[in-house]
């Protein structure tokens, strides 16, 4: 104790600090409120009118510079409720081509604070949006007859091509949740809803400007406040260059016509996504202007789910493409060497358990195993890994090791692409099986994960990224669709290399296997004389007809492109997967398709798969 006496006089210092702060603030208030010009000028309670000036939204180009998305002028009809008097409603409705009912309903909507939280009778509210140029010119002539109504120039999005809808996304009117969570938005503003429009909203939107006008007590505008000293010009949004190659995207969309699934291509050295097809797709141009609402409802109701971006939201069994990741894991853990052979006579047999395989020589070492896509080999690999009690104390520990390998290859979690809604897929862990199978499970209970079946699910993007990782011999860069933001560098996370847990020389073995698959294995039709293709097919079993899958890259020693193809219920990997992958690689590497390839592409484009009406 004793502080009360010893430091007692410090109470005066603290009191003095408080008094000092209040005195300084009083002086500041005095100068702001009584000494400044504003005080005199606003003595008659003049009000400011702030007019928002909208910036142009950033445009988007593809990697070759083709303009994909731009702005087109449109006109909104605005209303200030407090300025309405003697309105000839009938005349107004006629001029705008609407009925009295629509007029009444719209006025009610504007005043309803639940639907329009920013409502004020003193500010401009949107009455009708996006008049076309013709509608605008006829209405403008009559505007003087409708006091309280104004025209506000806006711009709407236009799309040059009917492609890449899932990547580009669209803009729509901002909803109450966005207004609540970000002060930038006011009712009637536009905001990116899907795709790049949403994920790069901050860069694309720019900054609104404001013009501060003085208004007298009768509401007449008296010019700019302090000659515009406090006005701010709008700052246009930043233009984006996408990593997408439009022609490649168009080819992909053409091939996938009439089929469900996805094609994803990545440039391995940069992680840039070259094309990202999700089928069925839609024409982004129908999501613009006043018909957006109707078309959006129509697409939402479609049982084939065209709005779903299957490339990042579809979670599929990867099938045999997954064997590459298993080979890498077994090699790195020392379970196998490239020379190890396992028996396979029509599949993996253990007691009553049987995983079928197709006819090929047996036993064979790793490289031809990848080339022929032998099921037995990988089942034995998993069996010996999970059963190895010298290396792992329990099957759970082996599972955890296995899972860590998978996660290091980008599976099991969203990769972090710059598009909204990416799914994580599924890589089971030990807890998962403990819960579902009880504590006493073994490699045999889960053997099908070795061949990319069972519980394992990947997104097509993750499969493509696996291809890019193998092409890079051991690392990937997070895939991204935006290559450049005008005047900004892209986020550093899209430049960092993520190394997997597997070393480079083991990747070389798998690359050799994938090359063998093209030269003399399951991917023979992808072989060509221009460059060395590496690939791996997949035929993923599911409730219906098998899915046709392909993962590959080319050229072998200087990879420029990695591709994943996923055609739902397309049958063998070689049926759709391999030829699609080969066409995409040819188009990108050669810049064009040869006449025979072109004919093949056209034939595939005209083939449709019958999905019935209930499935998916």
């Amino acid at each position, binding site marked *: *104790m004793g*502080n*009360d006496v*010893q*430091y*007692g006089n*410090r*109470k005066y*210092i*603290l*009191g003095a*600090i*408080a*008094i000092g*702060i*209040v005195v*300084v*603030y*009083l002086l*500041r*208030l*005095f100068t*702001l*409120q*009584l000494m*400044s010009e*504003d*005080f005199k000028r*606003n*003595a008659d*309670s003049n*009000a*400011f009118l*702030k007019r928002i000036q909208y910036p142009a939204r950033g445009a988007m180009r593809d990697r070759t510079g083709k303009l994909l998305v731009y702005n087109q002028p449109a006109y909104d009809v605005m209303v200030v*409720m*407090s300025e309405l008097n003697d309105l000839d409603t009938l005349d107004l409705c006629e001029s705008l081509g609407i009925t009295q009912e629509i007029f009444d309903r719209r006025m009610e909507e504007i005043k309803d604070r639940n639907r329009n939280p*920013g*409502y*004020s*009778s*003193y*500010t401009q509210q949107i009455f009708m949006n996006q008049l076309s140029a013709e509608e605008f010119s006829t209405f403008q002539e009559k505007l003087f007859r409708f006091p309280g109504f104004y025209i506000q120039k806006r711009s709407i999005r236009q799309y040059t091509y009917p492609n890449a809808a899932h990547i580009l996304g669209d803009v729509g009117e901002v909803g109450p949740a966005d207004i609540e*969570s*970000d*002060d*930038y938005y*006011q009712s009637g503003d536009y905001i990116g809803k899907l795709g790049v429009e949403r994920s790069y909203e*901050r860069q694309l939107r720019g*900054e*609104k400007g404001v013009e*501060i006008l003085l208004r007298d007590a009768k509401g007449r505008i008296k010019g700019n406040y302090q000659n515009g000293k*406090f006005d*701010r010009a709008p*700052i246009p949004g930043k233009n984006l260059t996408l990593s997408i190659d439009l022609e490649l995207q168009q080819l992909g969309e053409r091939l996938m016509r009439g089929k469900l699934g996805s094609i994803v291509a990545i440039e391995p050295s940069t992680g840039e996504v070259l094309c990202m097809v999700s089928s069925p797709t839609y024409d982004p141009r129908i999501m613009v202007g006043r018909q957006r609402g109707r078309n959006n409802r129509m697409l939402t109701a479609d049982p084939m789910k065209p709005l779903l971006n299957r490339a990042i939201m579809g979670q599929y069994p990867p099938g045999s493409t997954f064997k590459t990741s298993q080979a890498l894991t077994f090699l790195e853990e020392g379970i196998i060497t490239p020379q190890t052979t396992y028996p396979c006579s029509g599949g993996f047999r253990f007691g009553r358990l049987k995983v079928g395989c197709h006819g090929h020589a047996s036993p064979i070492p790793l490289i031809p195993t990848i080339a022929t896509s032998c099921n037995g080999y990988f089942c034995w690999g998993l069996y010996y890994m999970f059963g190895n009690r010298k290396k792992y104390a329990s099957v759970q520990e082996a599972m955890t090791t296995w899972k860590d390998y998978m996660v290091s290859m980008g599976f099991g979690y969203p990769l972090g692409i710059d598009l909204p809604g990416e799914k994580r897929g599924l890589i089971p862990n030990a807890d998962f099986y403990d819960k579902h199978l009880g504590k006493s499970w073994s490699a045999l209970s889960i053997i099908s994960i070795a061949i990319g079946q069972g519980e394992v699910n990947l997104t097509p993007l993750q499969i493509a990224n696996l291809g890019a990782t193998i092409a890079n011999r051991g690392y990937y860069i997070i895939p991204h669709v935006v290559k450049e933001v005008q005047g*900004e*560098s892209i*986020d*550093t996370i899209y430049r960092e290399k993520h190394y997997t847990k597997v070393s480079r020389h083991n990747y070389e073995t798998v690359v050799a296997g994938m090359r063998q698959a093209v030269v003399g294995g399951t991917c023979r039709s992808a072989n060509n004389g221009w460059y060395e293709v590496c690939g791996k097919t997949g035929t993923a079993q599911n409730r219906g007809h098998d899915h046709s899958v392909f993962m590959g890259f080319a050229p072998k020693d200087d990879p420029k492109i990695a591709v994943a193809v996923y055609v739902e219920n397309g049958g063998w990997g070689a049926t759709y997967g391999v030829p699609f992958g080969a066409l995409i690689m040819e188009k990108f590497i050669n810049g064009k398709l040869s006449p025979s390839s072109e004919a093949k592409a056209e034939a595939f484009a005209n083939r449709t798969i019958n999905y019935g009406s209930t499935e998916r």
Partner: protein
Amino acid sequence: MVAPNDNNKRGILASLDWFTIIIYIALLGMGWMSVCGATYDFGQAGNFFDLGTRSGMQIMWIGTSFILAALVLSIDERFYDSFAYVLYAAFMLLLLATPFLAHDIKGSMSWIKIGKFSIQPAEFAKFATALCVAKYMGSNDFNISKWWHFALACFLVVLPMGLIILQKETGSALVYTAFFLMLYREGMPGSVLFAGVSAIIYFVVGVRLADAHLWHIHYISLGQFLVLLMIFLFTVGLMYVYTKQREHVWRVFIYGFALTLTALLFSKFVIPFDVTWVLLIVCIGLIVYLIVLAVQQRSMRYALISLFAIGSLTLHYSADFALNNILQPHQQTRIRVLLGIEEDPKGVGYNVIQAKIAIGSGGLRGKGFLNGTQTKLKYVPEQETDFIFCTVGEEEGFLGSAIVLLLFLALILRLIHLAERQSYASARIYGYCVMSVFLFHLFINVGMVLGLTPVIGIPLPFFSYGGSSLWGFTLLLFIFLRMDAGRNRFVH
């Protein structure tokens, strides 16, 4: 030391400090009017008591605050002392859990949703921290001059701060620095407070004005110049206060000042050059001089003062360097936004300009209740929460704003008075915590609206809309009033 058992309600009511309670009610009343003004819209067929409106909700928060206050007063004050550590631990756990339970509101992870309402645990952690620190520091064997005692007291304050920063609520976290005012009252060396305040000033001034230029010459940074000038002046000031050798003080001051002035004039009128270099040389010269004095006279004081100057320079240059070279551009932006240099998302100083226009248009008497035009229509962002003082300024004018500020001053001075009359150290310390928190909120919140302090989003007590902050402040205040009401019970 036996407590009288006939401690009935009447006794408590009689010994309550009604002066404080009247100020509390007056502030709440004016606060509610401001919330009405800020959320009201012209032409609104308004019922201010409608629970669908913010003014109606605020009435509910005020009503529940009264109930809370009555509850606090009806509990024996020994409860707060006995459970101080438990409460503190509980709130720290809650703060730790908050980011995991919270849903994202404007990038902040500090709100927990309970049914229809959201609460912000950070607002309630203040009173728990104050109680805990008061109990620890009020114990008989606590001695602030033992460094580990002091360090533990600091830790109790810094812990909630860190946890709140994890919730991305830097503003609420900074409030805890107010506790250092209390520590100062309890015997923390004044130079610690001074060094801390100096560091903040260097950083804020240096970074905020880094891109402003002296005489519009692009290579002379006004921020650098001012910080170096402050380092020089603060160091000389410390020499003046802590040493008896005035002749040294005058010598360094006159030489340093003359050199700087000459350089300034030369740069302005003869050949423009970067005068900050001269100032840097002056500071380094001063440090060398101090070290020489320290060695010659074997004086700890000179050594410490030179350490202060060296620390100041290092901090200034490393902060600048870290901000510009080590951090990524987006991280730099975040810090600048925090300091109010970049007001996300509407551009530099938007809020502050809007606030000044609104307040400036209020004039002497204001535009009258609900007649403000600038604080409506969403011109001023956060107008019913952090920028509520704009509405006071616009609608109630200079007179109203002055009354509000003077009421707050009266409250703060009264709290000092009440704290000093406590017979127990822990009650006094708790009182100073309460006073410090109110002073800090007033200082930052009103300061930012007036454009004098950085934009740090913290509420103005009893004015800003919101239940969590109102309940938090009510708890903080009434626990102290309860302690005060029982102050004489244990004294024979």
